[in-house]
């Protein structure tokens, strides 16, 4: 009888691990894994390759970038018209309202770039790609995000950065290091909060294709109401956008903290100021729930 180890390793010569790469480490189980640095390099390489794949279809690529720009510009135009007609929106000066819109757009661009594939997860599920992702020794959520390069996010980011720069310049405030750090954290927190919302909805899409319609509806809500002081809305709606769909934490609360417009937020000022942390907590929670949903994944076609 052949020795089991020989059968596992095969008689054909050296197998896995015999010629160990310098970017591999041994886990506590004795398995070989990529080092964290090699893991990051691999992720960036996949991003670069999928970007190249998209860019090779030049017309389609440019059309997607232009779509991102057009989408965001249409929101800006609508916001500009509103601000022109109602300059004192909820008691907020125009430069403060502009900051809300700018922070939300930049956060949205970052969300699209890093987590945007969560929005349309059910198309990935229906194509049976989750099955393939489960076969690879990489986190499934990361593979979902790396499945395609989000060309439209470039358009979103282009508009977001431009608008954010204009808003920061226009805002009449002293940009101390603390404020600069806070606005950075707030933009990241906003992206994480948007990521949390759509990751949660994509967990639903892992089981129910109808979750896609909900994701699209929520996307509409975010772009419609996310750019203005929510205190202009009736109390119930304001509450819903704070505690049910936490849109207020994306840009409204951080902008209120930065501009000092903390009256009538519906929550204590300290909680509003903690919006970046809420974004982080929300994202971690949504990822845990996503992993739970993945463990109960039932696949397509049985």
């Amino acid at each position: 009888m052949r020795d089991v180890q020989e059968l596992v390793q095969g008689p054909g010569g050296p197998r896995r691990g015999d010629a160990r790469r310098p970017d591999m480490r041994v886990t506590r189980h004795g398995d070989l894994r990529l080092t964290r640095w090699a893991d990051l390099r691999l992720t960036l390489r996949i991003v670069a390759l999928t970007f190249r794949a998209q860019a090779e279809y030049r017309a389609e690529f440019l059309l997607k970038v232009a779509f991102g720009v057009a989408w965001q510009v249409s929101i800006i135009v609508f916001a500009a018209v509103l601000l022109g007609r109602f300059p004192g929106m909820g008691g907020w000066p125009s430069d403060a309202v502009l900051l809300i819109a700018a922070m939300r757009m930049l956060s949205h661009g970052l969300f699209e770039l890093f987590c945007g594939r969560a929005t349309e997860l059910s198309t990935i599920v229906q194509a049976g790609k989750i099955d393939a992702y489960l076969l690879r020794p990489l986190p499934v959520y990361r593979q979902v995000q790396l499945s395609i390069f989000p060309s439209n996010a470039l358009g979103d980011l282009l508009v977001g950065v431009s608008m954010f720069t204009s808003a920061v310049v226009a805002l009449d405030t002293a940009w101390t290091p603390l404020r600069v750090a806070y606005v950075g954290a707030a933009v990241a927190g906003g992206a994480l909060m948007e990521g949390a919302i759509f990751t949660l909805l994509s967990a639903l899409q892992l089981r129910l294709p109808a979750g896609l319609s909900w994701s699209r509806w929520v996307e509409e809500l975010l772009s419609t109401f996310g750019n203005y002081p929510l205190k202009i809305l009736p109390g119930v709606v304001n509450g819903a956008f704070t505690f049910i769909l936490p849109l207020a934490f994306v840009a409204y609360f951080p902008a209120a903290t930065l501009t000092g417009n903390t009256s009538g937020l519906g929550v204590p000022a300290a909680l509003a100021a903690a919006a970046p942390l809420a974004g982080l907590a929300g994202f971690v929670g949504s990822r845990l729930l996503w992993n739970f949903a993945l463990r109960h994944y039932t696949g397509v076609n049985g």
Partner: protein
Amino acid sequence: MTARESEFAIEARGLVKTFRTARRRPGALGMLRALVAPERVSTTAVADVSFSVGHGQLLALLGPNGAGKSTTIKMLTGILTPSAGRASVMGIVPYRERVRNARNIGAVFGQRTQLWWDLPARESFRILRDIYGVADGDYRSRMREFDDLLELSSFWDTRVRHLSLGQRVRCDLAAALLHDPPVVFLDEPTIGMDVVVKEQVRLLLRDQVERRGQTVLLTTHDMTEVERLAERVVLINHGHIVLDGTLAEIRTRFGSGWRVNATLVQTEPATGRCPPGLRVVRQDGARVIFEPDGTDGVAPPQALKRVIDRYEVTDIHIQESDLEDVMRAAYLDDRADRELDGELDGETVA
């Protein structure tokens, strides 16, 4: 338990997978009823499946469409979590330690690709090389090997979305074997391939098992593939294992074992003058097929002699039972058993 301690490369013990769905009734009233008070049904795709595969074995998991083959493979690869039972692959429970298990296995689902759709196949291979940490030298020699057997280099710089099904599945096979996994799962790997490519794939699989000692679990509807590759067959139907054994054992149990194919000089009906111990299965003009009638346990050489003694023949040979017939007999036997037990429905209303 580590792979070294595990006696088997693959073990399934009492695996069950049940899917819960809402039963939809026809018509508008049925739709309303489904909305207000949905009737939940449990569909058992896999029911109490147990088998094991030794290191370096090639096992064919066979069964008709919807028998539970793919669901079983999905549980063994960590895609699905069983409703009950236990699975282990190289000593690892696949659905509990998905990432560790993924490093030990390669898998091809013929209907779906695991390659990056928008990238050339070769880029996918390079990414997989880095994901699995395959050393450059090993990668180059493996790719040379695959190219020799599967002729990949003529199309591996083409984007996966532009490949034909046969080319794509060949690339999928190379991708699944690139990191030299000890266990390989293949779910209809030769689907959509022409006969030449099928033969290339069979050669590759034989090579993997015989030279590299890989354990292979294969599902296919191609009986030629089973005859060429499989040492052992597990037959599954309605989520149950119908039989588990070597091809020879299955032929003995469900086939007549052998038949005599003879071409007679005369074209008169052979039924009336049938040699003792044999009966006519089919006659098409001068061509007659005989099989043992079970009365005297006649052996193939005696049967040949009896036919030659009885008729004037121009051609005669022994043919082993067609594997498809044997499988059909096994399914029918299982179906008859289930009909007797009243188990055929497969759905239980919750």
